[in-house]
């Protein structure tokens, strides 16, 4: 390179000003190309309107004892199960050392790093609210009235994962408990899914 521009010539000598210009120009061009590519990559991330639909309000007054509903949230299902006292007792009687995943998978009310005890999976014991997507490969598990699996919770038909009455994985290929979405109770009978109370306060959502 240096020989061509006739500056200092031989290998092993001080780099010339032209060497520096080559490297600086190539570096600047590479950085420019990288920056120009970024918008074309980032455009594939969820758009503003998609993100805006990130939370929903659900009326749960019609979900009677021992029944459940499935609502659509962010294009997928959320299970809201109104548990009977017997169901709660059964879930709370499970010793923690038999659990496959011992983390709460619940970011609400500071329970992020809590154990997977049933108390850490719910805000109100009678309402279990979880994202209805199997943590294995994303199928929708079956529940009350269809197939509750071997642990009185949910059963995923795709690859045979069994979840218990607290939606914790008990047997099968799924690695984690069903995730708990961010949510809070706006009133006794309405629940806001997709926002924590703090986020709601920040973004101008007010509990009605």
């Amino acid at each position, binding site marked *: 390179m240096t020989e061509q521009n006739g500056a200092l010539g031989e290998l092993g000598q001080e780099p010339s000003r032209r060497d520096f210009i080559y490297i600086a120009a190539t570096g600047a061009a590479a950085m420019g190309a990288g920056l120009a590519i970024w918008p074309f990559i980032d455009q594939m991330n969820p758009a503003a309107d998609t993100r805006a639909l990130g939370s929903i309000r659900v009326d749960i007054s019609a979900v009677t004892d021992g029944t459940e509903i499935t609502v659509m949230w962010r*294009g997928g299902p959320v299970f809201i199960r109104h548990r009977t006292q017997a169901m709660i007792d059964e879930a709370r009687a499970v010793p923690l050392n038999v659990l496959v995943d011992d983390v709460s998978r619940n970011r609400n009310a500071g329970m992020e790093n809590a154990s997977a005890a049933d108390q850490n999976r719910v805000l109100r014991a009678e309402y279990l609210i979880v994202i209805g997507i199997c943590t294995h490969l994303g199928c929708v598990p079956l529940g009350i009235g269809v197939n509750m699996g071997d642990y009185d919770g949910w059963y995923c038909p795709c690859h*045979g994962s069994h979840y218990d009455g607290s939606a914790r994985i008990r047997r099968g290929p799924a690695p984690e408990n069903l995730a708990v979405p961010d949510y809070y109770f706006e009133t006794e009978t309405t629940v806001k899914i997709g926002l924590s109370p703090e986020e709601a306060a920040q973004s101008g959502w007010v509990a009605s």
Partner: protein
Amino acid sequence: MSGPSTYEPKTGFTRWMDARLPIIRLGYDSFVDFPTPRNLNYWWTFGGILAIFLVIQIISGVVLAMHYIPHESMAFDSLERIRRDVKFGWLIQSMHANGASFFFVAVYIHMFRGLYYGSYKAPREILWILGVVIYLLMMATGFMGYVLPWGQMSYWGAVVITNLIGALPFIGDAIREWLWGGFSVGQATLSRFFSLHYLLPFVIAAVVALHLWALHVPGNGNPVGIEVKTKKDTLPFHPFYTVKDGFAIVVYLIIFATFVFFLPNALGHTDNFIEANPLSTPSHIVPEWYYLPFYAILRAITFDIGPIDAKLGGVTAMFGAILILFVLPWLDTSKVRSMRFRPVTRVFFILFLLACLGLGWCGANNPDDLVFTMGHNAEGVATGLKFVWFAQFLTFYYFAYFLIVLPVMGLIEKPLDRPVSIEAAVLGTAKA
């Protein structure tokens, strides 16, 4: 091209053209006078068949895109409209859907041909690697194309496969959201899959051009696996191989037409006649048949390997099963190309072929179902060999073939005597 060009422009126009853009010379040297080994058998015709199917898929696909609507509430209906109302839509849609399957049948035969006759060995490593690139592009194109009808199997296949990405540590969730363009497979996903499904076949065509270029430098391999030495070992591509390839293409198209006209849905899945529903998972999700062996490998890893959990392990094994083909030229230590002269490795190859078919069978079945029953347990439930165990065994063999059999056999196996030349092999004269 191998050897100097023998093209001589004869008319005023061709001489004028040859001095400016020698494209007629390129075509003549590549497809007319190209010296081709005289002993190629019918396994060598699948390259031409694949070229035809790339063209069929692109033409039928461009036409379908004129009528298809990539919208989550209209895609399914627009496809039914193509099949019922659009003039000849029933034919063109059937050609495209079945064409994908026939494309993959041909590519698998083409690849096993390469594996059997050692087509990946020096000096054809780049040719082989470009072929693997084309295969990967075909897999991506086929996967995204299968999502477009927006039936239940389309949707849930996309859910399962994109969730594989989520198995990657740390960055998995972010990449998955980036792929989806949302919080689940939805409109954004459908739109981008349509866009990329339209783009990738042209990328494939470009890599095919490189593949042909890399083929025409060393020339074709051949069934005995020895290099062309003299002109007597070769025949001009035209008319000898244009006719041979042409005959094979016609036979293959007859079989293709049988499916297009009489069995248009035989290779599809009944669940894909139900519109996509994010709240209801089909009882048994299976990919298209051409992905089944890899699906079986994915599900065969049901155990943690050190710090890698089963899910990531399955994903790694599945991608590893394809990526290992890239380094195959350096895994096979034998100097002998053709399995005809490797009597022991040949048996391992046949077992490998059977293992691939067996993995496909496992992929089509529920992992917990039984391959065969061996009595019943105390509760009266049948016991026996589960598909997942069979798949684990076959997955082990799949990798062992590349990582143990080919490296070791090349060092210890004593190959049979090869003929002195291709001409001698064809004419049956003295062996070396």
